[in-house]
């Protein structure tokens, strides 16, 4: 079956984007170049936030 291949790309991307935003998960997506834009970026953004909060916690301990 070719059902999965015909799912609109923007729909897939929108869904992934939502998931990444809401969960802040490290999805480790390896999407082809050109499609990774917004998804990759919101995951990246969440990952940087995670580092900030962990670094802040350590800083406040000392």
């Amino acid at each position, binding site marked *: 079956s070719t059902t999965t291949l015909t799912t609109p790309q923007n729909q897939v991307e929108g869904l992934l984007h939502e998931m990444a935003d809401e969960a802040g998960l490290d999805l480790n997506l390896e999407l082809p170049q050109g499609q990774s834009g*917004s998804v990759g*970026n919101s995951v990246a*953004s969440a*990952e*940087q*936030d995670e*580092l900030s909060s962990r*670094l802040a916690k*350590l800083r406040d301990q*000392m």
Partner: protein
Amino acid sequence: GTAAWRAKDPVGQGQGQVQDSDRVRNHHKQAFEYISVALRIDEEEKGPKLQAVEWYKRGIVELERGLSIDLGPGTGETTERDKRLQAKMATNLVMSKDRLELLAKVVSGSSQ
């Protein structure tokens, strides 16, 4: 044959230059991985701090590389996102350096 398959490969290595946007994200990813390792060690009270120091250093190098990419004056949505990512990377660069400095003192004070 193999050549035909390669020619159709949309993400093959021979595709040309990598976009600045992807370069920023690649450095982010590398930095995230290194600093995550550093944090895992550092968060253990008796973790080997000297190792954490080394991982922080690697992460800092990657953050600096990502920040050295000039995204230009563009105001498109992607550029804006990339700039926000760089701003977060800059914050973590400062925090990592602070942490590294403190750890370096702890390490040199306790073991040498």
